[in-house]
C-alpha cells in the first residue's frame, strides 16, 4: 500500500521525525480554516499518489487564509497523471537553504535495508539514479541495526555544521525505525530540507508499506483510501485476486502470477493487446472466477468515437494450468457465472492439468469447449477480438 504524503507524515511524527504542522482538507473552506489555525504562510499540496505534483501545478504557496482557500480550490479541480485531486495537505511553509534526498529501501541483492542519500534533493531521484548514479550514496544497514556514529558518518561529508549533522543523523535513525518497525518497503524524505536557520526538516514523505505485514498493523486498514481504488480493484482486493488494469482489449484470467505475465506477453507476441493482469491464485473456488469475470467485463472506458463509456474488453481468455487449482473448479465458476450474467464478448478457454477431463465435461454440457495449448488459446482469442472489431 502506498501512503499519501499526509499519512506518511503522520507516521513520521509518531516516530518523532521533525515534520511541520499541517492538516488535510477536502474543501477550499477547510483549507482556509487550517491555514488560519497554522498562521502565516502555508503550502497547499495535492494529495495524489503521483510524482511531479509540483510541475503539474499541485503545490502552491499561500500567504493568507483567503489565498489558501483559492489555491486549494484550484488544486482540488486538477487531475494529475489521470488521478483527480480529492484532498490537499495544508502545511506551514518553510524557507529552504538546501535540499537533500534521504530514503531507506530494500536492497534485494544484498538482502539488507539500504540507505540512499544524495546532496541532490528535491528532484526526481529516479532521474539522478539513471543519469548520475555516483551522486547517490548507498549504505547497507548492518543486520544489528544502524548505530548513531554510522548515521553521523554518512552526513559528515555533506554537511559542515555539527548541529546539522546531529539533526540529520537523528532523522536517519528515526527513519530506520519507521522503515523497520513500521514494515515499510520504502521510507523516503525528499526533500530533507535545511532552513536558513539551520533546522533540518522532513518536508515530504513517501511511504510504501509491505502489504504482507498488515496482520500486525491494525491502523493500516484506516489508511486505505477508497478513492484510490476503482470498483474492479476493490473487488479484486476483497476476493484475494491480483489485478492490474492495462490498456489493451483482450481480457485474461490466469492462475499464477508468472503464467499470467507470460500470457500477457504471448497476447502481445501474437499481435494482440492485453487488457489486464489477473491472477486468480492457487486454490481457486468458483466465486473467484465469477468475481474475475465481473472485474474484467466491468472495466469500461470512454472511447473517443462516440464519447460513451463502453466495455474495454473485446474478448476474454482463461488460461489455467491446474496444479492446486482444479480445472473443474474453474469450469464450474465459468458456467455459474455465465448462467447468471451471460457474456457480451467471446470467450476462449484453455485448461490443462488437475481434473482436466472433468472440467471438459462440465464445459461441454454447457456448450463450451476448451483447448489444451496456451499458444492456441492466445491465437484464438486474438482472432475472436478482431472479429468483434470488424
Amino acid at each position, binding site marked *: 500500500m502506498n501512503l499519501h504524503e499526509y499519512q506518511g507524515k503522520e507516521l513520521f511524527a509518531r516516530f518523532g521525525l521533525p515534520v511541520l504542522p499541517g492538516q488535510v482538507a477536502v474543501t477550499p473552506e477547510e483549507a482556509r480554516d487550517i491555514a488560519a489555525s497554522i498562521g502565516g504562510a502555508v503550502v497547499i499540496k495535492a494529495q495524489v499518489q503521483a510524482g511531479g505534483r509540483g510541475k503539474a501545478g499541485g503545490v502552491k504557496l499561500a500567504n493568507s487564509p483567503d489565498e489558501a482557500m483559492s489555491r486549494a480550490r484550484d488544486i482540488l479541480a486538477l487531475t494529475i497523471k489521470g488521478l483527480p485531486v480529492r484532498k490537499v495537505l495544508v502545511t506551514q511553509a518553510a524557507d529552504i537553504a538546501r535540499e537533500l534526498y534521504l530514503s531507506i529501501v530494500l536492497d*534485494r*541483492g544484498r538482502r539488507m535495508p539500504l540507505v540512499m542519500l544524495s546532496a541532490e534533493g528535491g528532484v526526481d531521484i529516479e532521474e539522478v*539514479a539513471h543519469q548520475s548514479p555516483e551522486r547517490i550514496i548507498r549504505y547497507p544497514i548492518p543486520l544489528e541495526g544502524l548505530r548513531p556514529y554510522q548515521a553521523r558518518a554518512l552526513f559528515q561529508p555533506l554537511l559542515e555544521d555539527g548541529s546539522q549533522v546531529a539533526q540529520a543523523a537523528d532523522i536517519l535513525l528515526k527513519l530506520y525505525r519507521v522503515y523497520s518497525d513500521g514494515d515499510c518497503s520504502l521510507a523516503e524524505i525528499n526533500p530533507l530540507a535545511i532552513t536558513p536557520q539551520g533546522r533540518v526538516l522532513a518536508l515530504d514523505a513517501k511511504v510504501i508499506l*509491505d502489504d504482507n505485514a498488515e*496482520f500486525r498493523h491494525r491502523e493500516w486498514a484506516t489508511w486505505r483510501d477508497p478513492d484510490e481504488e476503482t470498483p474492479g480493484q476493490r473487488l479484486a482486493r476483497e476476493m484475494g485476486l*491480483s489485478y*492490474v488494469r492495462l490498456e489493451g482489449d483482450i481480457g485474461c484470467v490466469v492462475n499464477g502470477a508468472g503464467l499470467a505475465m507470460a500470457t500477457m506477453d504471448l497476447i502481445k507476441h501474437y499481435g494482440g493487446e492485453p487488457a489486464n*493482469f489477473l491472477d486468480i491464485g492457487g486454490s481457486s473456488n468458483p466465486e473467484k472466477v465469477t468475481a474475475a469475470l465481473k472485474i474484467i467485463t466491468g472495466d469500461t472506458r470512454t472511447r473517443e468515437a462516440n464519447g460513451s463509456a463502453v466495455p474495454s474488453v473485446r474478448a476474454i481468455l482463461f488460461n489455467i*494450468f491446474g496444479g492446486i487449482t482444479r480445472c473443474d473448479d474453474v469450469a464450474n465458476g465459468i458456467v455459474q457465472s455465465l448462467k447468471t450474467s451471460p457474456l457480451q464478448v467471446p470467450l476462449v478457454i484453455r485448461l490443462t492439468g488437475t481434473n482436466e477431463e472433468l472440467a471438459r465435461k462440465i464445459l461441454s454440457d454447457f456448450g463450451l469447449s476448451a483447448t489444451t495449448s*496456451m499458444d492456441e488459446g492466445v491465437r484464438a482469442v486474438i482472432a475472436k477480438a478482431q472479429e468483434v472489431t470488424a
Partner: protein
Amino acid sequence: MSILIDKGTRLLVQGVTGRDGAFHTQQMVAYGTRVVGGVTPGKGGEKIHGVPVFDSVAQAQSATRANATVIYVPAQFATDAIFEAADAGLELIVCITEGLPVRDTLSAYHHVAKLREQSGGRGPRLVGPNCPGLISPGLSKVGILPGQICKPGPVGVVSRSGTLTYEVVHQLTRAGLGQTTCLGIGGDPVIGTSFIDALTLFEADAQTEAIVLMGEIGGTDEEEAAHFIRRHVKKPVVAFIAGQTAPPGKRMGHAGAIIAGGFGTAAEKMAAFEAAGIPVARIPSEIPRLIAVALERRRSRRRAAPAARASNKQRAARRSSSAAGKAARRPKKSRPGAPRRGR
C-alpha cells in the same frame, strides 16, 4: 541424479494437519517421497495419511532422522517454522507459504545463512518462501508441483514462478525432454536459494546436461545470474523472462515482480542474457526447441571431442616439438548463427 532431493530425502511436513499440508502430504506420499513425519504443535501422537505427527521439529527430527522439511504453515507462523527447522539441524528447508513480511524473511534468511557459514557450508539451505518447491522426477517431490507433468531426463529447471514452471516443464516433457530436478525458488523480493545457487548445483550435477532458467521482472537476480553463467557455467542454459508487457510501478502478483524506479524490466534482463551469449526464448513454447538444439550441440561436441584430441596428438607428433603445445589445443569450431558465450 538430481539436485537437493533424491531417494535419500527423509522429509518432515511442518503444518501437516492444515488443509494444504494434509493434502500435499498425501500427494507427496503417493509420488513416492519418503515423508517420515509431520509437525503441528499440540497434535503430537496423531497420524495423517500414515505419517506420524510430532509437537516439535526437534522431536520429529530425533525420532525420524529427517534431513529435509517442507513448510505449509500460515504466513504469521512461517518465520518461526523456518527458525525451528534450522535450529533442529534440517539440511533443506522448503517454505511454500506465501505472504511473509519481508522483515521476517530477512531475519530467517540471515539466521539460516549464519548457521550455514558456521558449519562450513554444510548447514541448512532455505528454498522459498512463496515457492512451489521442487521435484526430482521419479525420485522425490517436495512441495506442490504436480508430479504427472514431469519425467526423468537431462534438463535442470529453475524458476521464480509456479504455474509458469508447470507450463514449461509440461512442454519439455511432451517434447521428450525429461528433467533432473525442477526447482521453484519463489516470487518474493527476498528468497533463500537464488538462481546462482541453483546454477551452481546444476553445473555440479553429473546428470544435468542443460538448464532452463525462468525469471521475471523485478530486482537484478537475472542479471547476476547472466554474469555468473558467463564465468562459471559450462552447461548450456536457455533463459526466459516473464513480464515483457508489464507496466512500471505495478506489482504483478508476486511481491517481487515490480519494475521499481525504472529498474528490473524484462528488456534489461533479456539483454543481460543475450550479452552473455545465452539464448533467450521470446515465448515459453520456444524453450523445448532451444533446449533440444543445445543438447544436440553439446552431445555432438562431446562425441567429436575425444576423436579431435586424438587426431591432434597424431598431428602434433609429426610436427616439431616447439609447435606441439599450440597444435594440441582443441580446434575452435566455428558455429555460424550459434549463440556464443563471451568466455
